[in-house]
């Protein structure tokens, strides 16, 4: 599937800011399920590119002019293919690194109790466990737009039973790691529409390592595995290490207004 992405983020500030720095993880990774045909990241300020420890293509954006608005955009075309949600490991980090907890993905007593019934099976049939867990969480966590803030922890998500895609990914990862199953967080885009009405979204999902198979992705928010409609931008231990945009600024008001538009369209359908 050939997908055209137009992604624009605009930060508006009540008061002028003097300096801001951002890490932009807005370039799709190259892997067997996605090939970049063309890609371009732009931002207001000066951009330099580098690769982080997880192998994510990252840009550093520095804006040192006095502004009340900063716009960032990522545009391009990606060719995706459906590999049933399974990807090989890229060998960048040892797989067992993805067992470590982070502040957003630390299992508390409630999570440990929640996964306890799977302890045994996690060793004998981990794939089955991943499917069962994902099913359980889909039933238990109500997808609620705006119900959480970016920094909700996995423990909070289970406790309150509500969340968005990122929260569901965090909780799923935390459960898997608590069972000794390596799991990673993926941020990216999802194409949900059709040629009539191209639907668009920034999205997040998770993948679990299954020995002999690979990284198997699970998109709990959409009750699916990774498909040709998913474009992966960055992967990491959690949102904090793979956020598409992460920045700090000097000056400006306390409330920053962020305006995100993502347009993902399927190229070629119109012809």
């Amino acid at each position, binding site marked *: 599937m050939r997908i055209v992405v137009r992604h624009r983020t605009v930060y508006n500030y009540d008061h002028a800011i003097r*300096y801001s*720095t*951002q*890490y932009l993880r807005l370039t799709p990774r190259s892997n067997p399920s996605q090939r970049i045909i063309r890609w371009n990241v732009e931002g207001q300020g*000066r951009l*330099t590119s*580098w*690769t*982080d*420890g*997880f192998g994510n293509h*990252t840009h*550093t954006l*520095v804006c*040192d002019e006095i502004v009340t608005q900063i716009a960032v955009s990522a545009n391009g075309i990606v060719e995706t293919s459906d590999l049933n949600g399974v990807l090989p490991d890229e060998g*960048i*980090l*040892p797989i*067992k*690194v993805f*067992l*470590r907890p982070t502040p957003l993905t630390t299992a508390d007593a409630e999570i440990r109790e929640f996964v306890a019934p799977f302890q045994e099976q996690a060793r004998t049939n981990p794939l089955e466990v991943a499917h069962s867990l994902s099913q359980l969480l889909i039933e238990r966590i109500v997808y609620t737009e705006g119900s959480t803030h970016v920094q909700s922890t996995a423990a909070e998500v289970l406790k309150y039973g509500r969340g968005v895609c990122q929260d569901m990914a965090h909780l799923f990862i935390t459960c898997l790691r608590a069972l000794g199953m390596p799991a990673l967080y993926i941020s990216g885009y999802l194409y949900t529409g059709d040629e009539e009405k191209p639907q668009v979204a920034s999205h997040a999902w998770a993948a679990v390592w299954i020995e002999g198979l690979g990284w198997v992705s699970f998109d709990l928010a959409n009750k699916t595995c990774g498909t040709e409609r998913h474009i992966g931008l960055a992967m990491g*231990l959690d949102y*904090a*290490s793979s956020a598409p945009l*992460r*920045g*700090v600024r000097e000056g400006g008001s306390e409330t920053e207004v962020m305006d995100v538009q993502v347009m993902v369209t399927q190229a070629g359908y119109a012809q």
Partner: protein
Amino acid sequence: MTYPDGSPRPAYSHISDWLKWSTLDRLRQRGAEAEVLFRRLGITFVVYGDDGGTERLIPFDVIPRVFSAGEWGRLSEGSTQRVRALNMFLHDLYHDQEVLKAGIVPEDVILANAQYQPQMQGFNVPGGIYTHIAGIDIVRCAENEFYVLEDNLRSPSGVAYMLENRQVMMRLFPELFSEMRIAPVDRYPDILLKTLRGVAPGGAQDPTVVLLTPGSYNSAYYEHAFLADEMGIELVEGADLFVADNSVFMRTTEGPRRVDVIYRRIDDDFIDPLAFRQDSTLGVPGLLSVYRSGRVTIANAMGTGVADDKSVYPYVPALVKFYLGEEPILANVPTYVLREKDDLAYTLEHLDELVVKEVHGSGGYGMLVGPASSKAQIEAFRHKIIANPSNYIAQPTLALSTCPTLVEQGIAPRHVDLRPYVLSGEETIVMPGGLTRVALVEGSLVVNSSQGGGTKDTWILEE
């Protein structure tokens, strides 16, 4: 200081005579003068755990600790060997991980360790050096028996005491310095600066080095200011630096100035809020990107904490053999690794004889000194161990060497340890001296300044 029969070791013969001729009153008077000098220098230390963190002077003892050239030769070679191996270990961990594949260190000890830094993976640090400044804590248990207690590879502190203790001693006892041939330590700041300049990213002709401090609330702030001053470099806080055009700049009155090397005294977690702790206001946003692009050197490198973690310590002698193919010159203290069943069982049986340490702790916090603890303290600690055995290691209580020390009752033996400083850059250099810490309480084995320890000047006799 003495042989078992009471006669002084050769290194101490002069000091022994000197002590015989000095009256207690005179020594006490010198001790008081030393305190005045330290107060005037403003050298203080913040003790955590007290209410609000009180700032106080570390007690200084005027009786020096002395090593012969021969004794020092071994310590210095042993420390160098250890630091070389640990540096190679870090390079390996952040590249091919041969050491894990060979089974020398268990995988999860590294990969599950919070100090292992995925952001360092696959990145070549300038000059291949991770541990530019290392402090190796060494204890002595018999004439030829030295053990490494721990390695300090993050941002070891205490070197300001080494330098100031010497300055004070030279003022108080100039006659001893003319009578004895004592190796100087005052070149440390020059050698440190040379080391740091030598690891600047390729091509920097006249590199700019800065010292990055978390600020005046940090326990070692005095040392940060002192070292920056001695080296003639800028002492900066995170807010004084910024990232632009894939470089790090320092704000100066004459405009931005590019920085090549950052001698950082702040922890990994706080160094870049875009990569690590988002709430950190101490770091430099964007620093990781410049670092990974090879356009600034950070000393010590990020992620060095994984190599000095107490869970890794038991494997260091094996690392020396693995990387250098040499026998370790300095031994480890025999260590029980409580993640191992047998070691755990033994330790729980012998808590009253052992020292038990948290694997991720430092500074003498969170440890049990069995022989010095009450039954209730031991039982409380037993529960902590059973709840999470892999969080602990245990070691026998060592018969630490003592050094004559001026205390209330007169001159009495007190237990000491030693921290030599090893600088690694284009070459590896051990300063002939170090920080001797002394447990001032009779019989105590805990020398940490946070736990009531003091310091002494350390003299290396030249041949």
